[in-house]
């Protein structure tokens, strides 16, 4: 597009304003982003939003009650308010998604930088381990890790983090390999900069945009993996209002009280969809290759 050839009369473009200019053109991603923002706000403010305590409130006279004004999403088979549980569950799911991907991306990025910059033995070892991890279908790997570590939400987060590591490592390694032969890196090297400085100051910033895009795409996958593990009974323990666990508990009452399954399922579906659409938007906005096409 012609706008990319900077006109002298325009104000200087910072990378941020450049990003925003491209990103705001993507309406779907904007909506998804707004939804994610709303989720984050809800998750943070959850304790002040919920009308009832998500874990300790119960009303045995309203078992399986359908949605009503008193209970917006209805009541579950143990007399708990589903709306309150979904809202509190947003906290758990988002935290699980963010924490696991954050841990996975940090470790993966470090490994990728090391492998890509030094190549040789460290590269071979790191990449072969990644290949082994890649060989497992995602959920199977997560199940395997949980089986070793034991159940519980913390271990699920660890499992999802581990299963995010290889993708980040490979991504960053690729970028590092390309960046380290660029002139400015060689210039820094010839000026006597240490490996540490080169990696952190000159190469790492160049990989950030790819990591950010992948980070946002990965959160959706991680949320659904964490929810799946809870659905299979390996993650959240009762009475934790985790969406996957709620969906599992609702299964037995599905024919009698479908709302118990619908709301957690919708929550998972919309959240994962929003993160994926947002990730697509970010990729389109941040990836320089797309503009050139």
């Amino acid at each position, binding site marked *: 597009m012609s706008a990319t050839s900077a006109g002298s009369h325009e104000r200087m473009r910072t990378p941020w304003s450049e990003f925003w200019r491209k990103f705001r053109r993507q309406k779907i991603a904007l909506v998804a982003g707004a939804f994610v923002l709303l989720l984050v706000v809800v998750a943070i403010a959850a304790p002040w939003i919920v009308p009832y305590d998500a874990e*300790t409130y*119960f009303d*045995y006279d309203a*078992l399986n009650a359908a949605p009503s004004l008193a209970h917006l999403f209805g009541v579950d*088979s*143990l*007399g708990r308010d589903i709306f309150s549980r979904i809202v509190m569950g947003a906290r758990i799911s988002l935290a699980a998604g963010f924490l696991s991907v954050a841990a996975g991306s940090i470790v993966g990025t470090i490994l990728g930088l090391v492998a890509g910059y030094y190549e040789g033995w460290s590269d071979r070892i790191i990449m072969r381990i990644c290949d082994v991890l890649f060989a497992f279908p995602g959920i199977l790997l997560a199940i395997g890790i949980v089986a070793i570590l034991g159940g519980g939400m913390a271990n699920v987060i660890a499992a999802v983090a581990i299963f995010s590591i290889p993708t980040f490592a490979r991504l960053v390694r690729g970028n590092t390999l390309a960046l380290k032969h660029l002139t400015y890196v060689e210039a820094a090297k010839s000026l006597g900069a240490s490996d540490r400085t080169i990696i952190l100051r000159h190469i790492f910033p160049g990989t950030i945009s790819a990591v950010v895009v992948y980070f946002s795409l990965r959160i959706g996958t991680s949320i659904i993996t964490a929810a799946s593990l809870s659905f299979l*009974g390996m993650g959240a*323990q*009762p*009475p934790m209002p985790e969406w996957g666990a709620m969906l599992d*508990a609702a*299964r*037995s*009452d*599905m*024919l*009698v009280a479908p709302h118990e399954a619908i709301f957690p399922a919708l929550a998972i579906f919309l959240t994962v969809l929003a993160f994926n659409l947002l990730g697509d938007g970010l990729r389109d906005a941040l990836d320089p290759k797309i503009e050139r096409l």
Partner: protein
Amino acid sequence: MTKAFLHSFAAFALALLALGATPAHASKDVVFAVASTFTTTDPYDANDTLSQAMAKSFYEGLFGFDKDMKLIPVLADSYTVSKDGLVYTIKLKKGIKFQDGTDFDAEAVKVNFDRVTNPENHLKRYGLYSIIAKTEAVDAHTARVTLKEPFSAFINDLAHPSGVMISPAALQKWGSKGIAFHPVGTGPFRFVEWKQPDYLKVAKFDGYWRKAYPKVDSITWRSVVDNNSRAALMQTGEAQFTFPVPYELAGVLKAKPGLELVAAPSIVLRYLSMNTLQKPFDNPKVREAIAYAINKQALAKVAFNGYAAPADGVVPDAVEYSVKLGPWPYDVAKAKKLLAEAGYPNGFETELWSAYNYSTAQKVSEFLQQQLQQVGIRTKITLLEAGQRVEKVESWQDPKTAPVRLYYVGWSSSTGEADWALRPLLYGDSWPPKLFNTAYYRNAQVDADIKGALATTDKLQKAKLYRDAQERIWKDAPWAPLVTEKLLSAHSRNLSGVYVMPDASFNFTDIDLK
């Protein structure tokens, strides 16, 4: 064009109807949809009630239980016991043949009992019959069984669904392990095929000793693990009988015309056992407080959809010698007071394990968690899967380090008699890994009562001893007794004569399809 289409459609529909219509003398084939796969067809080697119930298709025992859990002679005609309670002389019915054409006689009794009491055969039910010292065939129709020590519940053991008569000729042919794939008994149906894990099929045995029985031509036992799928099979008419019906789906099946939902009483007691060796459960006040803190009526409603009743005692009503002592009242104020007296005014934190991980058990666990929270007891729930249950509870070696605290579990006393309801669960010598005393409860007087009752053949004396034991246990509260559940089954209205017995076994002697 449309008209032609409609016509052909009508013709097609008619053809379908014609195919579906039942001719007057069709063979009567019944499909049972059950919740688990069968572990074996050999009742002596089965630990699960379902496999033993299925095996009643082709096997019968010397004694048995009718649909109300009353002891009745089956292949036996009568029996006498010697004064010292050691020698049982059993008269057998005459003219009974095995499905392979051989005769049923006292020699067959000997072969079967010798097989199960031989430890080298490694049969799972060895423990139930190890009391037998020797079995002799006095004549063709009289068997004499000598016990190692007096054991007054022996005939109940023989009536247990595992105590069946297998054809000695078939045992000879297939071997002790192979017989599981080629069962031959005296029962109303002969074995046809077992397609693991989908179904097992049996067909009418024409030489069955009860004249005019069985009244149907075949039964196909289908294992359908998923609750919703099992309910669907009933709704579409693909199965004529199903057990168990999940409590959540009771309403759905009840509303379906052509289906009948049956809620039968059970001898399955659900309770919360507390590890009495460990703080704070070593304090009886804490144990009582927990029993008071739980609303059993609400539990029946929440987890069992109303198909359960608060437990009346430590032994379910339908079991012989059970004493009605409860239900234990629901009283939060009293629970709090007891906790305060015991030194826990603000409650405490502990583990709550469920012996099962299916949906009803999960609901019960979460319900108990809610209830205990009301008195300040915070619990961490773990739903154990079978392997974990064996590892962490049932086979834990050192009682002092046993990690079990609050433990939700159930027990079905399949001999229909108080001994098997008390001894495995509350006898001082029954701590894991031996048996299932998960409360690590020991009361010398209770132990003496249980032992004494076993040794005596005097019914009044037995009743007195069992009453004393149950009252003491109730007072010591090693458990919080919860509920006895109802057994929910469903059958199509044209099927009759199939009953779920109080121990969750089946009785289908009178099965008929209209």
